[in-house]
């Protein structure tokens, strides 16, 4: 206690003032030892009175680096009687506190120094406020423009500044955050470790992402959490080192990633995602099932483990090439590809590749399909087709033999015994002949249909105009008693097998020729049209036409929309035409109306080639 000779009541009042003051009130002896230590001093520096009394003030609360400053202040106080200093002092726990330090020398009447009165005011909150103001004016514009939530934190870990995005993201009004330890934004389970990390970062001088390789989370005011990506950068200011944390909400990205993973897992193909060095980054469950490896065994391994050894070297070259020009495409479209299972078995695969642009660079995703079954089916189909061909070949030929017998002997009977046959017997024999002849025609038609399906296509530029004109003049010379106007547009060109193109034109013109036989002024037009969405060649006539309701049946083998008596035919011509066009990658369709003619549109490819004017 300090006794200055006042009354008991006055002392009590002085005591109250001293003890209740939030400032630290300290009395020092001339040599700097503590003679008095108020409650305020206990609160600010966290030393109990008993610990403080008799100690050198310098030893107790002056940080090493400030020793000379403290000595200078003491000397100055003794010399001049009064000093004021804003400085930093150390607490019992080692932490720092910024104080306004007022020192006054108290002397007796003789002028001898009795003691030194020290009044230390904790100005940390003032400093914070000042720092926040300064930082705020400097950075506010910048911060508000940033897409991320930005928090600026002082050396003491308290929030100095936050932008609007922080309010939105964390659900705190800004005022509520300023001055709070930044840990309020950290989920409770991470709070304990955070100040340590924070202090460690304060010693670094480079911006960097927070917690490399660790999933980070933010905590909203309502206690909910969100995945976050945080980058830190240090910034030195007069108020000390400030740390800026840019916080990005990853919820959407995580959701997208989850969706991506979901899709990946649901894919019917084995999906293997590879980085630019050829290492496997991601695989789905189908990959595990197909190749017999567990996910763990595949990740980080070169993708070549999934290939038979003989392809590996070439593959890594191809892989490089693909990364140089990554576009979505099938792998090795001309090649038979094989995969290698963990147990060493190989199997045929089909692979399609597509590049994925990710923050970690371009990855390549390959969808791998086991085509073992399809290959087997294909080869079975090939065998079946070959057998079918052999079958239709021999059916067509062998069926004709008995027909020749039937027809031949009926004819012989008719020729040889004509005089001795009843008219009715004569009639019946004629029926046999007609039927046999008709069946011969059907077999021939069937044979030609099967031929257009199996002969090899040899496409070359074809002049359809010339073909159509030749075909029309052939029809005219075979049917001299009819006058049919045939108009063929000039310059109809396409790429097609010339022999089959002729079959198409012959059939369509013969058709038009046939179905205009009951028309007074028959006319056939051959040309190219842009009508509708597609550019197509057409053969148009003004003949019998057909009911559009049956348009779909026109091209089925043996389907006829007219009786043989009206218009003879086998019902195979249009079927052959369609099959030829389909084999070229084209198509045929028709428009018509009964008694108003028919138009057949056709293309050899997706689109008809242009007609030259």
């Amino acid at each position, binding site marked *: 206690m300090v006794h200055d000779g006042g009354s008991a009541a006055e002392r009590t009042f002085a005591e109250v003032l001293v003890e209740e003051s939030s400032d630290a009130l300290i009395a020092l002896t001339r040599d700097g030892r503590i003679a008095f230590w108020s409650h305020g001093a206990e609160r600010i520096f966290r030393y109990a009175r008993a610990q403080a009394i008799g100690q050198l003030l310098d030893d107790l609360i002056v940080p090493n680096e400030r020793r000379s400053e403290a000595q200078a202040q003491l000397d100055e106080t003794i010399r001049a009687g009064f000093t004021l200093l804003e400085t930093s002092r150390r607490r019992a726990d080692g932490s720092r506190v910024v104080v306004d330090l007022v020192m006054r020398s108290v002397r007796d009447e003789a002028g001898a120094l009795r003691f030194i009165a020290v009044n230390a005011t904790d100005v940390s909150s003032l400093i914070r406020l000042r720092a926040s103001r300064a930082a705020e004016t400097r950075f506010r514009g910048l911060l508000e423009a940033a897409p991320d939530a930005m928090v600026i934190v002082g050396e003491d870990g308290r929030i100095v500044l936050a932008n609007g995005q922080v309010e939105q993201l964390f659900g705190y009004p800004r005022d509520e955050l300023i001055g709070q330890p930044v840990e309020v934004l950290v989920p409770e389970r991470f709070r304990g470790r955070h100040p340590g990390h924070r202090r460690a970062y304060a010693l670094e001088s480079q911006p960097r992402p927070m917690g490399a390789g660790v999933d980070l989370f933010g905590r909203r005011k309502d206690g909910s959490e969100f995945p976050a990506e945080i980058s830190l950068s240090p910034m030195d200011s007069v108020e000390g080192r400030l740390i800026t944390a840019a916080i990005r909400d990853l919820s959407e990205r995580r959701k997208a990633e989850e969706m991506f993973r979901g899709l990946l897992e649901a894919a019917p193909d084995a999906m293997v995602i590879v980085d630019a060095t050829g290492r496997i980054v991601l695989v789905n469950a189908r990959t595990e099932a197909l190749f017999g490896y567990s996910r763990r065994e595949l990740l980080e391994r070169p993708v070549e483990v999934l290939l038979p050894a003989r392809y590996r070297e070439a593959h890594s070259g191809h892989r490089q090439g693909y990364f140089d020009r990554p576009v979505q495409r099938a792998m090795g479209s001309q090649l038979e590809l094989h995969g290698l299972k963990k147990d060493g078995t190989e199997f045929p695969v089909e692979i399609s590749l597509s590049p994925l642009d990710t923050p970690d660079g371009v990855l390549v995703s390959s969808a791998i399909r086991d085509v073992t079954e399809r290959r087997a089916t294909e080869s079975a189909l090939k065998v079946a087709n070959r057998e079918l061909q052999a079958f239709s*070949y021999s059916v067509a030929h062998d069926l004709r033999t008995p*027909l*020749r017998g039937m*027809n031949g*002997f009926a*004819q012989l009977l008719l020729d040889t015994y004509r005089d001795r046959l009843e008219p009715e017997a004569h009639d019946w024999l004629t029926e046999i002949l007609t039927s046999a*002849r008709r069946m*011969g025609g059907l077999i021939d038609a069937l044979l030609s249909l099967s031929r257009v399906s199996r002969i090899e296509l040899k496409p070359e530029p074809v002049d359809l105009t010339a073909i159509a004109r030749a075909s029309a003049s052939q029809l005219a010379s075979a049917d001299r008693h009819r006058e049919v106007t045939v108009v063929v547009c000039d310059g109809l060109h396409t790429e097609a097998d010339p022999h089959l193109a002729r079959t198409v034109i012959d059939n369509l013109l013969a058709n038009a020729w046939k179905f205009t036989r009951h028309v007074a002024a028959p006319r056939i037009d051959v040309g190219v049209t842009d009508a509708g969405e597609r550019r197509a060649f057409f053969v148009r006539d003004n003949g019998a036409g057909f009911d559009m309701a049956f348009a779909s049946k026109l091209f089925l083998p043996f389907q006829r929309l007219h009786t043989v008596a009206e218009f003879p035919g086998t019902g195979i011509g249009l079927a052959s035409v369609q099959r030829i066009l389909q084999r070229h990658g084209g198509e045929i369709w028709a428009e018509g109306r009964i008694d108003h003619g028919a138009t057949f549109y056709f293309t050899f490819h997706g689109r008809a080639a242009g007609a030259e004017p």
Partner: protein
Amino acid sequence: MTKRILLVEDNASDEKLALLAFKRCGVPCEIEVARDGADALDYLFATGKHEGRDPMARPAVILLDLKLPRIGGLEVLRRIRAAPETQALPVVVLTASREDEDLTRAYALGANAYLRKPVDFSEFAEAAKALATFWLRFNEAAPAHRD
């Protein structure tokens, strides 16, 4: 002297029709029938069951089916063309097939003509008449081969 045709045909009904057609065609001829490829070759080279036959007595024309038991028509044709004594013999392929492949191979092996058997007998009779007229009446055979 009546000229001879060698008909190589395995189908009895076709054989009968062919015989009738040629009999009625108005060109006198003698028809020898071989019922498969081996039989035809034995006849031509006087081997097997035709051993002792005068190999120099050759047919004026051979009518050759392609689909034959034992040795097929194309193989018969190949052997005819391979042997010096028969290589100049006229061979007319007479078959049900109109496959491009058969036509191509028959001509490549040296067939002189290719006739597809029509279903209609009148047509066939007409063809038989034309064949007989041409090969038996008008065509000059190559001089007999001497070893």
